[in-house]
């Protein structure tokens, strides 16, 4: 299972990576991108099975990225989890309408994040689901 973590903050990417590896997701199956454009490129080169997407990013933000990913046939149903500080209701509704699978507001502890993610992890993929 390949997971793409997309966040312009290196600290946040590491926090998310740690939450995944602590629950058995292999480190080498976690990929990182610092903006939406890089994420699109990486997801075209390698099939991803789960996306963790920040909202506010340079070049291409998470909202636009979700819309672009959903227009790609093989990512039409792939779980996309938006993890963002954007807590306003209108942001949540926009993200859902754009096609996110779940919406998580930062800050979030690693264990709580895992509880929200584990149902999207294939059984046996990393031993944590």
């Amino acid at each position, binding site marked *: 299972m390949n997971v793409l973590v997309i966040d312009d*903050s290196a*600290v946040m990417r590491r926090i998310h990576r740690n939450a995944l590896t602590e629950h058995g997701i292999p480190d080498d199956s976690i990929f990182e991108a610092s903006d939406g454009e890089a994420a699109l490129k990486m997801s075209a080169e390698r099939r991803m099975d789960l996306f963790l997407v920040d909202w*506010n990013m340079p070049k291409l933000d998470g909202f636009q990225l979700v819309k672009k990913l959903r227009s790609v046939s093989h990512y039409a149903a792939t779980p996309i989890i938006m993890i963002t*500080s*954007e*807590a306003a*209701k209108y942001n949540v509704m926009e993200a859902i309408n754009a096609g996110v699978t779940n919406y998580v507001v930062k*800050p979030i502890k690693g264990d709580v994040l895992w509880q929200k993610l584990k149902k999207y992890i294939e059984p046996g993929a990393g031993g944590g689901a």
Partner: protein
Amino acid sequence: MKAKYINPFLAASMNLFKEHLGIEVRSLNPFVRKDPTTLEEVSGIIGLAGETTGAVVLSFSRTTAMNIVSVFSGRSYTALTNEVLDGVGELVNIIAGNAKKDLLDFRISISLPGVIVGPATRIHWPEGIPVITIPFDSNLGSLSVNVSLKEAE
């Protein structure tokens, strides 16, 4: 500036520092900052746009910045590295993004965070709008959240 515009930033800060990071922090009385260039050495900045304009600045000393980002990231820092500055940007991003849910008068978009080290003279505050400082004491050092927001007409 009305309390209803300040309280969301106070609540978001307390949630982040106290509830999420477990830092022993208490808020002190907010005040109007007469000279907004007199902030601490490290400042994380978020611009607010949309149906209002404004800025949010999280400010602390180098040591406090390192201490708090160390707790936030789970990695201990003894120097003001790029990763510490990245963490400062993320902290102010969380405060601003979380505060939006209680700022019901406006639909707001927030900018990407910027971080400056040194004199706060380079921060572009909205003209003619007071800057309200919310000071905090904590076991990791003092900090402040500074807000300038144009009120609804």
